[in-house]
């Protein structure tokens, strides 16, 4: 667990020192929701049914944009290579990195989603259910997205490629996440979908770090 804590604390400290940069995904999420509301002609009735799904898609985009640069700074200053050489176990260290990344990208998006939901006229009863679905879903997005970010880290190509690689893999999370949000907004009980989201999270915590590690090792050889 030591490797986890070391990486987790280190990455959080780095994020704290780049405050503005860390704010970007959250600002993007709010801005995109604002544009969505405007683009649909400020007519709230049209948004009623689709709001849960729409916010989920926006959160997914924000996540792809945020995760893209997850390894780029560490790669540039060489600390990624050191990590791959000495981290024991690498699994825990990578999990720590992704967890720290989620604390500054996924968690604030989930926490702020009730406020953003005001823009698209989500009723207060549904707001917290929406936040809960994002709270359970965004860690999975971060873990799966990190595999794509690791694969692309060495190529010098940016976000579009990462998006192309990982968005098909986001399909299950999106289905259950937006499904839960829409059920909750419609007044139903979303616990079945929430359990599925939790299952996906458990699965990706177990498997994704292996994928991230393999991808980073490969990337180190570019």
């Amino acid at each position, binding site marked *: 667990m030591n490797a986890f804590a070391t990486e987790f604390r280190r990455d959080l400290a780095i994020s704290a020192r780049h405050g503005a940069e860390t704010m970007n995904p959250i600002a993007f999420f709010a801005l995109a929701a604002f544009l969505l509301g405007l683009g649909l002609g400020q007519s709230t009735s049209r948004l009623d049914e689709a709001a849960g799904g729409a916010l989920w898609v926006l959160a997914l985009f924000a996540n792809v944009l945020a995760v893209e640069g997850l390894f780029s700074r560490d790669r540039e200053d060489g600390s990624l290579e050191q990590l791959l050489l000495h981290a024991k176990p690498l699994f825990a260290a990578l999990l720590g990195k992704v967890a720290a990344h989620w604390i500054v990208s996924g968690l604030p998006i989930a926490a702020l989603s009730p406020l953003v939901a005001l823009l698209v006229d989500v009723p207060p009863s549904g707001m917290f259910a929406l936040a809960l679905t994002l709270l359970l879903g965004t860690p999975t997005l971060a873990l799966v997205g990190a*595999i794509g970010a690791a*694969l*692309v880290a*060495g*190529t010098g*190509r940016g976000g579009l*490629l990462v998006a*192309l*690689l990982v*968005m*098909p*893999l986001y*399909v*299950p999370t999106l*289905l*259950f996440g937006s499904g839960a949000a829409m059920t909750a907004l419609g007044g139903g009980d979303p616990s079945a979908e929430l359990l*599925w989201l939790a299952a*996906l999270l458990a*699965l990706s915590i177990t*498997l994704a770090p292996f*994928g991230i590690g*393999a*991808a980073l090792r*490969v*990337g180190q*050889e*570019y």
Partner: protein
Amino acid sequence: MGKATEWFRRTFHRMGSPRWFFAGSRGWMLGLYLVGGALIAIGSAWGLGFAPTDRLQGDSYRILYVHVPAAHLAEAVYVAIAIAGAVHLVWRMKMADLAIAAAAPVGMTLTAAALATGYIWGIPTWGTGWVWDARTTSMLVLLFLYFGLIALRQAVPRADRAALAVSVLAIVGVVNIPIIKYSVDWFTTLHQPASIRIGERPSIDPSMLWPLAVNALGYYLFLVGVVIAALRAKIIEREAKADWVRTWVQAR
């Protein structure tokens, strides 16, 4: 037993040599084209001309003789790519990567063909071409997975490095395919359940099944021939600096 193992080991090692594969594969390719093409001709003529008309769907069901083989192959090719990716990562066999590079566009084309024929078939039978049904959706996801494989290869400048990245992505993709399939299945489905399952009596009548089986086998053989042809082209491209390629080109 010892002899068979020895033979397998030698063949496996030879298969790893682009030069040996290139020299030996021309005959296989032509043979596969010939047998596969003949089976497709027989199966298609049988299915389109002689198999009975469906009571509910009329003649429109006959697109099944293209749709089903294409859809099966599209998935089989992705699994084959993932296996080749694992072989490449473990043994760093160059041929495994060249096989991925050769097979990915073929698989992508088949996926597109399955989606297109499905769309056309859907219009008379479902009343709409595209539906957010379990299997159409997961087929579309498969198309995007193929896009990703091809895009990643082009993004990494050095061919041998791109090979490693693509292998990792292929394995990640194949782990995800069942999850994607089940999650999409969870949505109620409009697509008919699979008619042919291993170990059960197929729910499709034998008079319609036989031409389909012949056609599917023909598609498999023919497409393996196509992949071998693409693989031969990749070998010449990747080994362009080798002496044997130069002599081979000059001899033509």
